[in-house]
């Protein structure tokens, strides 16, 4: 009885440890994938930042022939008194 119990416990321990070790490799693979995707994401973000930079915008403005806004007029918002 005791021998059977030990054998069962031993086998299940082996199975568990084996599956844990395999899972370890799967985790590693997934971690690598996550790192790869994060890297790609970061690269794309940095490319987007470069495109939003003032230098890049200026270049596009010049290419499109856009002109700077002229004189701005400011409206006076003086309080209005109404009488009835």
């Amino acid at each position, binding site marked *: 009885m005791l021998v059977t119990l030990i054998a069962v416990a031993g086998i299940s321990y082996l199975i568990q440890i084996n599956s844990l070790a395999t899972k*370890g490799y799967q985790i590693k693979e997934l971690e690598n994938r996550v790192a790869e995707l994060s890297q790609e994401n970061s690269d794309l973000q940095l490319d987007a930042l470069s495109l939003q930079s003032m230098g890049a915008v*200026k270049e596009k403005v010049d290419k499109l022939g856009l002109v700077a806004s002229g004189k701005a007029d*400011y409206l006076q918002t003086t309080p209005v008194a109404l009488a009835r």
Partner: protein
Amino acid sequence: MAIIKRQKSEPIQSLYQKRITLLALIIFFISFVIIGRLFVLQIWDHSFYHDLAERRQEVLKNLLPLRGSIYTKEKDQLFPLVTNRDYYLVYAEPVKIKDAKKVIDAITPILGLKEEEWQPLLAKLSKGSDPYEPIKHKVAKPEMEKIQALKIEGIGILPESYRFYPEKGIGGQLFGFVGFKGDEKIGQYGLEGYFNQPLTGKSGEIKSIKDALGSLITIGPRSIKKAENGVDLVLTIDRTVQFIACQKLKFYYDYFRAESGTVIIMKPSGEILAMCNYPDYDAENYGEVGNIDYFNNPAIFAAYEPGSVFKMVTMAAGLDSGKVTPESTYIDTGEVKIDSFTIRNSDLKAHGQQTMIQVLENSLNTGVIFVEQLIGKETFQKYVKAFGFGQPTGITLDKEMPGDISPLDKPGRIYGMTSAFGQGITVTPLQLTAAFGAIANKGTLVKPYLVSEIIHPDGKKEEFGPQTVRQVVDPKTATLLTGMLTSVVERGYGKKAGVKGYYFAGKTGTAQVPAPGGGYGGKTIHTFVGFGPVSNPQFVMLVKLNNPSGPRFAEDTICPLFHDIAAYLLNYYQIPPDY
């Protein structure tokens, strides 16, 4: 028979016994040797073999922290000005390379190697005994993938992180750069130098068991000390203002073929909106800098004799000590004689009776000497110090100079007189900006600051706001002086700095540069510092060009630059006109 049998079996028995004994002895001996050997291996040389096994099975990796980024804030959104980007190092293991020429032919077009690069490399790769040879740093991902696809034996790839600047050419001297000290990355100059330790963070380590392929084994013992990433900095810099300031400065620098130039734009509360110098360097490729002097930020490092722009300080001292009013008069004879020296006005003219307003409008040296003589050198010196000259402003940038006002300690009267119009003492552009800021700020000197927030890796934020240094002059003095400086822009030498529809206060300065052999040479430094709109100042700005060619005085060189940037800022910040 039985006896005979016994007689025959006895020697056999004895032989068996002997053999068994011998075998036992052999086994015992072998066991002894084995046990002895095991004793030597496991106990005697335990540490040696333990270390050997550890080296084979265990892996100890340094976990490098991520260097913090530097941001600017735009409508509550962070925009990185300096961050990290992963690149790759392509290296070779010449011992594994069979045909070096073939390898060079394959990688040269992808890596864009020039002849002077690939030729020495070919020689190195042909050396069969060489275990490692770096080929190219900072290889971008597409090129790295092409190299990887070739699957060349003996060519390896390693990731490496570098600083990345999405905005090009807007202040290498402001940011500084990350260089190497041995194998260690280290921030130098500017923000990178000042905040090197907090930006770097703390490295960690991982200790674990690896398998035959070198991967970490999940079930093995493992200890991890996580790396602590560096802090992020949020700057007060306005990206658009910084870009425009740098662009306009470069235009005027080129136009007047100046030696160098500086622009500082600050809110009266001390927030730096822009700090730009020319020539600057590209922090991403700091190794390609033409002159190592360019690493220093002239806005905080280049102390110089400011010239007439310093008359603001003398007049502030005169007004605040009650010795003069804007309407006080004196007789300008065109020169002041002291000992063997004669000090003249810059226009070499005598203007007769002049008010203090006219002293600033016409930038009369004799006028500020008159004021300095009335208040006395000690009082004048007290005000010069109170305005923050002679000591660093404390801005969080590496390599700030204090300037030199020690000539005011000397006994001769001449030192006070020349200092009154900004010659003989040295100040930094940032100190001048802060001093004018004090007048825009009702007489209160504030500390200029660049970093508004430090964000720690755990998300904790440290915020920084305006810091009052001291009340330098009475608010009434500041108001009177603002009026007088407005007159300089409206009617005096600062006319070209003004923007139609707005009142600005400011002062020009055309300072002579000391010659190496003593005295003054032909070189000049043109400065204009102003603030506006005077009814509610939104910014203080210093513009400076070193030794511009062409016009002799600052009103023709630097005032138009001030005007251009000021006009842009008024539009950008949507500031309604005064009239």
